[in-house]
């Protein structure tokens, strides 16, 4: 299969790989949201972590991905795109934009769907962590 230059670039030089500490530290931090989507038997698992500032912006993001080159590129691209965005803005990102940016072929569309899901799941995780203490915190515009 031929990959686009952008997919190869993300594969070889993934952006924002890693995590904000151990899984325990990440779980306990109220400023971090985590989204893990996919399953090993399907051949792809994406993990997205977002660090949200007090004013509701995603100030930093980290990803890890077990999957094909297109899955790695989709999640790497997602971290680039969400950094600096508010949660609402990040939720506007559509998988079709990822498909277009990376020139993914039809068989790889599920990789972009997974990336979109990981953004939604991470934001949801952040919001549920912060729902009890200060519910308005997550929706500051």
């Amino acid at each position: 299969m031929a990959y686009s230059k952008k997919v190869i670039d993300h594969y070889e030089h993934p952006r924002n790989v890693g995590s904000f500490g151990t899984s325990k530290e990440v779980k306990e931090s109220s400023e971090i949201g985590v989204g893990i989507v996919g399953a090993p038997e399907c051949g792809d698992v994406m993990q997205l972590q977002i660090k949200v500032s007090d004013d509701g912006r995603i100030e930093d993001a980290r990803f890890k991905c077990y999957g094909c080159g297109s899955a790695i590129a989709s999640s790497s691209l997602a971290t680039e795109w969400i950094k600096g965005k508010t949660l609402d803005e990040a939720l506007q990102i559509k998988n079709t934009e990822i498909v277009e940016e990376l020139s993914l072929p039809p068989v790889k569309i599920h990789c972009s769907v997974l990336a979109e899901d990981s953004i939604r799941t991470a934001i949801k995780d952040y919001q549920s962590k912060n729902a009890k203490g200060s519910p308005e915190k997550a929706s500051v515009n």
Partner: protein
Amino acid sequence: MALKLPIYMDHSATTPCDPRVVDAMLPFFTEVFGNAASRSHKFGWEAEEAVENARKQAAAIIGADPKEIIWTSGATESNNLAIKGAACMYAKAEPGQRNRGHIITAALEHKAVLDPCKRLEREGFDVTFLEPGPDGIITADMVRQAFRDDTILVTIMWANNEIATINEVPEIGALCHEKGVIFHTDATQWVGKMPTDVKADNIDLLSWSGHKIYGPKGVGALYVRRRNPRVRLQAVQDGGGHERGMRSGTLNVTGIVGFGKACEICLAEMEAERDRLLKLRQKLENELSSRMEMVVINGHRDRRLPHVTNISFGFVEGESLIMGINEIACSSGSACTSASLEPSYVLKALGVNDELAHSSLRLSLGRWTTEEEIDFAVEQITRTVEHLRSMSPLWDLYKEGVDISKIQWQAH
């Protein structure tokens, strides 16, 4: 000598033609171009002589009589002719009826055996698909237990194409002879690499092809036993009655000459080549296993062909692995590299979990594989696996001691 990239480690898929084979073939394109079936002139006689010489070379490598060799277009055709031809010849009921006879084969056979068997199943035959154990080997005992009173044919490959494991072929053959059942083996991965004696190994029908043994593509052979028992086949392809009526069609003289020469070279160099390739494969496996954790060799550790390894790297996905090792030509058991999005059915039959099946590579070495190439492959595979593990959330979980199979994943 500078390494020529990409390096070829997919000899189980096909091999380059040996230049000695090409030299032997060349005159038969332009000078000796006759139809081997032309009996009335020198052009035909010379072509026939070349074909008969190749038949001797092909017979010699499997310990057969030249009269027992039928030329075909490749192992797929040989398998089809052997399986359908024998089933129809020895059927216990006419076409259109049920209970026409029982056939034994295995779940990890090549599609060129499985699909003819499935077709026969639709046409009134019963088929048992044996399941191997975790080591991938089909034993004589498994076949013994599957036997029925109406069993007419057993077809079990000699060595598996994906994991290179070696089945108990001589023992299965002996069992079939004891029961008076015809025994076919798809020996495509075996012949040319390992010593073969169809008489001593109790084989009635044996398929192999030219392009796996440094010969040309598009030519194959089927051994059909003539004595104890004399095996008869119903033709699949009808026509001019070539090959004793079993396979009509003008002979591919050029290809057949190449096939014969390829057999001759393999036979002469087999022992030395086997030892050389085994050493190279051992080096490949040892280096990969010692440099990295969670490296799993699929299939039986010892009972397999010397030049092939099927190896999985835990917590790394296969397609991204292939993408990283782009200077190594090899095969993957990954779902993403196939049209079906299913991991290898052979590895599944072994009970290898999907996650490991996704990350498997089949590296098959050949006549021109060098130690330098092995060193290169080890470096590039190690670098890629480490790069991918540094990105893999599953690798982190493994390192934290989490059992991945116990996690409730959100499959999509």
